[in-house]
């Protein structure tokens, strides 16, 4: 296989990892006002992702860095072209990341409420916008002969792009609810499971619409199989949730997201950013790529270090494998929680 194809696949893997992992972080954040009934429950939810969210977010940094190194033209066109959505995502990630660390630093209810808002908005905005961005990448955007994006923000806000955004928004919400059901105990666990099913049904309808649309536009036989498998995984996850099998339910949404993202990359290949202006201007895995030497160096680094990273990230999940319930939240601060 060509090294450019290997790196296209590796970048797909990084985005799959990012959406499967930070997807549930976003979901937990978005559902904070819906699932939690009081301060202690909010803290239960936040603490389910507390030890891992930052490690999950690194996937996007590595995806960005790998794109820069392996496909500099793709990185340059995408980041300068999707300027304002990326700026919004950046602001969202900044306030959201800070709120996890800062919200518990003071006891005033007002302080906590403000950071809660940052978590909610900071989770929902990227969950929506990543979907819009990816749908537009797959569908193609106006790109000129100099590989410059020539559209505006409104070019990206087309029906297909917006539907893509709604799919990621609802899918991540369902994924997050599944995660809360898996990682908590007590009342909130059951409510999370019920909510996951309800959001999951909406997500399933939207996702099927979106994936069929994608299949019709740019699909191949392979993508049809992958998209069908993604849809099946989601149905399986929802059935498992109804049966009270939270582990399998979470695996269901996890696999759904992974397969859907993988399918989008398959639909994209061998382009990395198709041009709607003229197919000749499209960025492809070859005309956007770095040199063979750079790709070779990077391949060695990836081959050696990716298993190590996966190993210790998996170990972290094992260390924090236990469910959290309201009585695990330190009691000294329970008084403050009641006051608010």
């Amino acid at each position, binding site marked *: 296989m060509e090294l450019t194809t290997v790196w296209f696949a590796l970048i797909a893997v990084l985005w799959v990892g990012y959406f499967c992992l930070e997807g549930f972080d976003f979901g937990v954040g978005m559902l904070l006002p819906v699932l939690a009934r009081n301060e202690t429950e909010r803290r239960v939810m936040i603490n389910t992702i507390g*030890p891992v969210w930052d490690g999950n977010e690194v996937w996007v940094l590595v995806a960005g860095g790998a794109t*820069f190194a392996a496909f*500099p033209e793709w990185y340059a066109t995408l980041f300068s072209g999707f300027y304002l959505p990326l700026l919004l995502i950046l602001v969202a990630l900044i306030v959201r990341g800070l709120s996890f660390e800062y919200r518990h630093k003071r006891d005033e209810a007002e302080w906590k409420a403000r950071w809660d808002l940052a978590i909610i908005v900071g989770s929902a905005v990227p969950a929506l916008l990543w979907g819009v961005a990816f749908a537009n990448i797959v569908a193609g955007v106006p790109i000129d002969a100099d590989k410059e994006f020539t559209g505006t923000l409104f070019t990206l806000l087309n029906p297909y792009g917006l539907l893509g955004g709604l799919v990621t928004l609802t899918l991540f919400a369902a994924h997050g609810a599944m995660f809360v059901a898996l990682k908590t105990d007590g009342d909130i666990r059951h409510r999370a499971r019920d909510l996951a099913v309800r959001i999951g049904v909406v997500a399933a309808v939207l996702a099927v619409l979106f994936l069929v649309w994608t299949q019709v536009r740019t699909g191949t036989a392979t993508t049809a199989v992958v998209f069908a498998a993604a849809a099946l995984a989601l149905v399986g996850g929802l059935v498992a949730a109804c049966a009270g099998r939270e582990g399998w339910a979470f695996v269901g949404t996890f696999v759904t997201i992974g397969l859907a993202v993988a399918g989008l990359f398959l639909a994209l290949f061998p382009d990395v950013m198709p041009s709607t202006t003229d197919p000749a201007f499209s960025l492809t895995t070859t005309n956007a790529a770095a040199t063979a030497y750079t790709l070779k160096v990077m391949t060695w680094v990836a081959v050696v270090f990716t298993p190590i990273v996966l190993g210790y990230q998996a170990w972290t999940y094992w260390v924090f494998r236990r469910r959290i319930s309201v009585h695990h939240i330190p009691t000294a601060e329970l008084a403050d929680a009641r006051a608010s």
Partner: protein
Amino acid sequence: MDVLDIARWQFGIITVYHFLFVPLTIGLTAVIAGLETAWVRTGKEDYLRLTKFFGKLFLINFAIGVVTGIVQEFQFGMNWSDYSRFVGDVFGAPLAVEGLLAFFLESTFLGLWIFGWDKLPRGLHAGCMWLVHLGTLASSWFILAANSWMQHPVGYRFNPETDRAELVDFWAVMFNKVQLVTFPHVIFAAYMTAGTFLLGVAAYLYMKKKHEADRPMYHRAIRIGAVVTLLAGIGVGVTGDLQGKVMTEVQPMKMAAAEGLYETSEGCAPFSVFTIGTPDGTEEKFAVTIPCLLSFLGTGSFDGTVEGINPLRDEYAETYGSDPTSKAYTEGDYTPVIPVTYWSFRFMMGLGFFAAAGAALILWLTRGGRTPGVRWLGTLGLSLPIATTLASSWGWIFTEMGRQPWVVFGLMTTESGVSPGVSTFEAATSLIVLTSLYAVLAVVEVKLLVTYIRKGADPFVEPPDVPVGGADDDRPLTFAY
């Protein structure tokens, strides 16, 4: 202002801001890991209390460092797409490797450290912080290798067909001679920042009546902080001196700009401590100078020749200024903004010397277990971490402004790296949004730091000694958000 000006201001503001938090992060991870290891090995309660106390302050600082770091990686593509296209083959690799090797390590093991008090055995818990520190060092290595390449491009060839710089020797980029002196300089500066922070905060609390009972603990922290500061300060000085020599060799214009030396000085070039002159720096009204020092800083010999700005400018104009279509061409001249380079160089050194002197003074005042009665101990102490942090900022302003008009020395000017497709509206929105957000965050961060510094260290609580994964009971978490 056009997109170029806005993008430059954004890069300057966003990057200097990000780096306010970075040295403290790098240095404090080592200090905290050291304190926790001391606790594990000696069992002395004070070490654990200091670990937890400085751990809390560290996390307040680290959080902003992390989230502002995301912008760094995105803005190359957003505002500097032509730069990214031109250098991506060389510059992208260290960034990607930094993410894979360093960011995962830092974030994952920090998560384990924060929440792992009742989930990990003590030694392993301390080990997590050491791994976070290793992550910060790896991160510094790769990002500084990328920056060193911009100062002194090596291990690449220019490919006229693709019109970009292409990597031919990865190891040459990793062990660039600029990198070999810059990395230790930055890391020693980070240790110095952490040393002054430990010393400063401890000195402040030492002087407070409220914390009188904890004086022995803070006394110890003052001593550790002062020793770290001074040892690191020696490292900063030595590596800074080495950097000067390398800089004179590979970027003579920057060295000349550091002094505002317009004409080549054939031996015994003086160094001015400060100058009062015309704003553009071309005419000198009054100056305090040390004879021959610039020659020594630049060449290692008091008699060394230091090239001046004017001959270098002519030389660069001849070499690079003939082809207006070249990425190395500029309409302006090939000199940096001299007052900025001149003063930033002095602020960096002055603040660094001030911090080292302050630490030495406090070390002397607290010698042999003495309790200094001076009332300004806390104020002096707290001014030291501010001084070291600002010294780092000025150091970066010097090294980046001193490279101008280049973004990659000799290869590409900054003006030719800007995104051609980004509108003034987009760039201005980004600058305004990020700058205002950062301003608000700075206020929040400083207020939190002050609040938590004032509280002082919490009383000693014995953490549970548990197997990996925690004891099999249903007790509340030792730490929760």
